[in-house]
């Protein structure tokens, strides 16, 4: 009986019976919390709201995917360029790259969105909200990608660089043929994690009324007041993307672990 609930040995597999029991317990636990909120709020569910407003949900979800895909690509470019700039012989580039990374990583994303939206956007006359959304998200994510790539570059042993130098490879060729192919493989798990963050963080763009998934859901909520259904569906929508990515990331980690 005790074995169903307690595991002592770290390496010991959890038995099937114990897994089932505990999954059921977690389910029950969540069920009671839901039940509590429903009773307390005297809430009556109407899930038809999801299908009635499916167009809005689909538009929002597609927009989130689109913004995130484009931003992922741009942030990868920013990350690669910036990671190289951090090692540049030109001191200005180094400092600029460092400053950018520290600034982005040191401030909340919400503050960056507001700053960008109220100051940069009008000053540069950027009117298209989607372009603004791409830019903010890419700049934000780019700083983290920079750090991931920098870590990857630094994980390549110095002896390889010396060997490459002695063979006559140029600095650019060393990056192109020797460092990046190895770095790319090593950082894939971390990068997958970053994609997951990017998708979740994109929900903050709703604050400047970019019509992505969160914004669209809030619209439905404002029209119907079916808060429970809409917000649960919103969370579910993000989980549908992030859980596979998280599994992929773990799989990549294991794969790399065995290869090295």
């Amino acid at each position, binding site marked *: 009986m005790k074995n169903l609930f307690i595991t002592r040995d770290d390496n010991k597999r959890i038995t099937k019976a114990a897994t089932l029991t505990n999954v059921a317990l977690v389910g029950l636990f969540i069920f009671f919390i839901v039940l509590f909120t429903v009773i307390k709020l005297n809430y009556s569910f109407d899930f038809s709201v999801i299908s009635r407003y499916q167009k809005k949900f689909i538009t929002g979800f597609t927009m989130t995917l689109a913004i995130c895909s484009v931003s992922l690509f741009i942030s990868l470019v920013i990350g690669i360029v910036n990671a190289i700039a951090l090692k540049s012989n030109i001191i200005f580039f180094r400092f600029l790259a460092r400053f950018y990374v520290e600034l982005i990583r040191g401030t909340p994303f919400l503050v960056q969105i507001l700053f960008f939206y109220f100051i940069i956007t009008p000053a540069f006359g950027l009117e298209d909200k989607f372009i603004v959304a791409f830019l903010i998200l890419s700049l934000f994510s780019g700083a983290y990608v920079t750090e991931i790539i920098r870590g990857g570059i630094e994980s390549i*042993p110095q*002896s*390889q660089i*010396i*060997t*490459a*130098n*002695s*063979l*006559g*490879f*140029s600095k650019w*060729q060393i990056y192109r*043929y*020797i460092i990046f*192919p*190895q770095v790319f*493989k090593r950082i894939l798990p971390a990068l997958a994690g970053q994609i997951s963050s990017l998708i979740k963080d994109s929900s903050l763009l709703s604050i400047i009324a970019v019509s992505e998934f969160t914004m669209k859901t809030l619209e439905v909520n404002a029209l119907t007041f079916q808060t429970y259904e809409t917000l649960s569906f919103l969370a579910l929508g993000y989980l549908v993307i992030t859980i596979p990515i998280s599994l992929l990331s773990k799989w990549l980690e294991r794969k790399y672990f065995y290869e090295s």
Partner: protein
Amino acid sequence: MNLNINNVVKQYEVQRALDDFTFSIQNVPSLVIVGPSGGGKSTLLRLFAGLELATSGEICINGQQIINDVNWLKEYRKNVGVVFQSYNLFPHWTAMENIIMPLIKVHGYSVEQAKETCLQLLKRFDLLEHVDKIPAKLSGGQQQRIAIARALAINSELLLFDEPTSALDPQLTSGVLEMIVELKKEGTDILMVTHEMTFAKKAADYVVYIDQGKAIEHGTADEFFNHPKSSVLREFLSHTTI
């Protein structure tokens, strides 16, 4: 090989690795550099390889003076084959890719030319079965032999070895050393830093003992091993098994 080294100084931040180093030889096919760790041997080899700039002084190899200029050294490096202690091969490339990539990207070979050169070399050294293996699937000795083949591929007249066997188990060492002896027989000039005294005795034409950034003693292999003059060298040799 001819070497003329005049008053070479290599100063690192706190340490002087080579201190007014002067040494010269004429018509020596294989030179072996020995000495205690931290004595300046590897620094000297890195200067020969064009991987570092001397702080001052003059180095001349086979009539070619090494110029203290980063861009000049980049060009110079392309034509000097170097084999390091370990991690010579790039882990993401197969044996063949390790050999052909420098030929294609640095020396402008076509892919076919490079592959042909590579296969000839691997065949010559009995390494053909490893052509498509990545370094992780090769023993340390096989990796070093492929690294030597890569150094040979660029047709350099001079090969530099920086303790090529010191990271290997003894049973793997012999294969690598046999390959180097074979190269010497075939007329490739060899300059090698090593702790393998047996090998030095067998393959070296000339030996120089370096300590504290200076050439303490040098001579033909026979003079050097059988009639050491300085007490430091006698001391050093007494600690090494031959």
